[in-house]
């Protein structure tokens, strides 16, 4: 199985982004998704900058892929999209059906927001030129097993395996709303939150993460325990989503388990302190996404009155 680094979801300063991807050259990842997928107002890097990063990573032996913005609203959004789909140097991850149309039969990766839940839809995507599809985040192991049986020949499968999950997109910017700024004059406040802005319930349960127009899980999805199952199911690529700190160690942990140098339990124990919040894997087990299942037991679930999620709830149990 290959390791992919998912597109950067957050808005980091230009220098930070450049340093991050310079370091990626030496990480044991095979595929790197690049580009701004969340908000067109974020301009620390423009498309030519992303292409330069792609060049640098290609030189280091990685396979760069340019990801398209998920929510396309304005004419400018479509102009940027066309520049990506017109490029002939790098592969494209299509995150909207408009992007699929513009690929016009050329090979592309069907992103996780295209809502591919069934074989007939997988067939439609393959007929359009998809060479890889990314499983929707809310799909379970059982669902994936079914689709792996049904998938068209030659179509690769990628699964989101680590990171805060992008759960929703809106026209509204929730980070600007938090500061009482209008979106059109947001003052780029996303930059204050390198791993997003935590949203908690009134009883301090870490629930969601605000990231501009995107809403993420607060908890960090991890399939480190499922790597064997993913391999058995014939999954080709796992996706790790960048976080602001320790991403090198996250990648190393997944690589070590894949290579059989470390047990999943050991890697998990080492990973948890590196996460911006507690872990979850409920979707994989056909449960609420925020649940955490270990050894067949739900170890963290938002039972009524629960004070805290994730690892803290577990250690208190």
């Amino acid at each position, binding site marked *: 199985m290959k390791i992919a680094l998912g597109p950067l979801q957050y808005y980091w300063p230009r220098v930070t982004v450049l340093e991050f991807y310079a370091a990626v050259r030496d990480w044991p990842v095979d595929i790197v998704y690049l580009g701004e997928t969340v908000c067109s107002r974020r301009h620390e890097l423009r498309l030519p900058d992303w292409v330069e990063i792609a060049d640098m990573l290609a030189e280091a032996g990685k396979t760069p892929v340019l990801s398209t913005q*998920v*929510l*396309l*609203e304005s*004419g400018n959004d*479509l102009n940027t999209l066309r520049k990506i789909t017109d490029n002939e140097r790098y592969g494209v991850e299509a995150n*909207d*059906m*408009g*992007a699929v*149309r513009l690929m016009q039969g050329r090979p592309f990766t069907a992103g996780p*927001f295209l*809502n591919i*839940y*069934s*074989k*007939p*839809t*997988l*067939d439609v*995507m393959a007929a359009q030129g998809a060479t890889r599809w990314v499983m*929707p*985040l*809310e*799909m379970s192991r*059982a*669902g*994936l097993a079914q689709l792996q049986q049904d998938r068209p020949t030659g179509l690769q499968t990628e699964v989101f395996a680590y990171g805060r*999950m992008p*759960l*929703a*997109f*809106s*026209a*509204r*910017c*929730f980070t600007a*709303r*938090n500061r009482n700024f*209008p*979106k*059109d004059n947001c003052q780029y406040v996303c930059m204050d939150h390198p791993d997003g*802005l*935590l*949203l*908690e*319930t*009134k*009883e301090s*349960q870490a629930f969601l993460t*605000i990231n501009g127009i995107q*809403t993420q899980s607060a908890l960090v999805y991890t399939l480190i325990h499922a790597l064997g199952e993913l391999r058995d199911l014939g999954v080709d690529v796992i996706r790790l989503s960048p976080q602001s700190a320790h991403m090198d160690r996250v990648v190393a942990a997944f690589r070590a388990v894949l290579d059989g140098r470390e047990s999943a339990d050991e890697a998990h124990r080492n990973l948890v302190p590196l996460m911006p919040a507690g872990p979850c894997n409920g979707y994989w087990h*056909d*449960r*609420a*996404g*925020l649940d955490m299942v270990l050894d067949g037991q739900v170890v963290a*679930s*938002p039972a*009524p009155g629960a004070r805290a999620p994730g690892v803290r709830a577990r250690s208190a149990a």
Partner: protein
Amino acid sequence: MSALPESHRPGVVPRHDPSDFELVCPAGSLPALKAAVDEGADAVYLGFRDATNARNFAGLNFDAAAIAEGIRYAHDRQRKVLLALNTYPQPDGWMLWRDAVDRAADAGVDAVIMADPGLMAYASERHPGLRLHLSVQGSATNYEAIRFYHEHFGVARAVLPRVLSVAQVQQVCENTPVEIEVFGFGSLCVMVEGRCALSSYATGESPNTHGVCSPAKYVRWQQTDQGLESRLNGVLIDRYDDGENAGYPTLCKGRFDVAGENYYALEEPTSLNTLELLPRLMAMGVRAIKIEGRQRSPAYTAQVTRVWRQAIDQARSSPSRYSVHPAWMAELNKVAEGQQHTLGAYHRPWK
């Protein structure tokens, strides 16, 4: 809103005969369907009693007999019946969704409202005469996406997600060959429809997978010393002081702590209401207005349909003199979520 109607401004030419403009109303049950037809809906939309539609709520929706009677009732009065088949077929559930397409075609509905490309491919091959509408759950916010569905499956109409501004709606209208339908009134989704998994994150069930959002079976109300609490699968969505109006715990409409402040961090409990935009929407070529609320009562459907029928008739007969009657707003606010309304994303500052 503006004194000068858009249709009278230079450069804005109505693309269609305004008499084509359709009022599309929700029918969660046969009584609601009849109420909508009686009050002047041009079309009603409804769903089967299962996970194939995005209002898969207990006690709601139609079996075969009810659909047959509903279609007869509507067609006798020259109105249309649209069937929402707008969830995503799940990996092991293809037969359920496929059969639903066949049942819809056999029942003689005027169109099927769909989100899933695989299902559209099946419908367009098996039932070439069946008219297809792209559901709001298809997340098509731009004309390139709409063209995709039109070119591959012959989609005749697209329902736009509630995320676009008026100018963006106009851009879509000008660049697609398909009819455009927009939401006019009802509960407001703050997220792009079809791209929101918040409900399954909290409960395991979402609009895409189960046709539900914040499903009632996960809701718990609890009176505590600190106030009335609403929970969704255990997650505290809101807590109300004595005397506060408590709302249904739709999870994006709760009060949460962000950066030391407790507030409606995502969206207030509020309804979308675009009455004041009606002449502009008509002038830019929008073909239909959709009213949300299949989960609401027949009385709601009747009330909302009546107001919108009057408004559309007035906007159609004399767009230059159109104005929103205070009585219309008063009627609609009575049934609005949180008893308040917004123009939502149509109005730029909302974003």
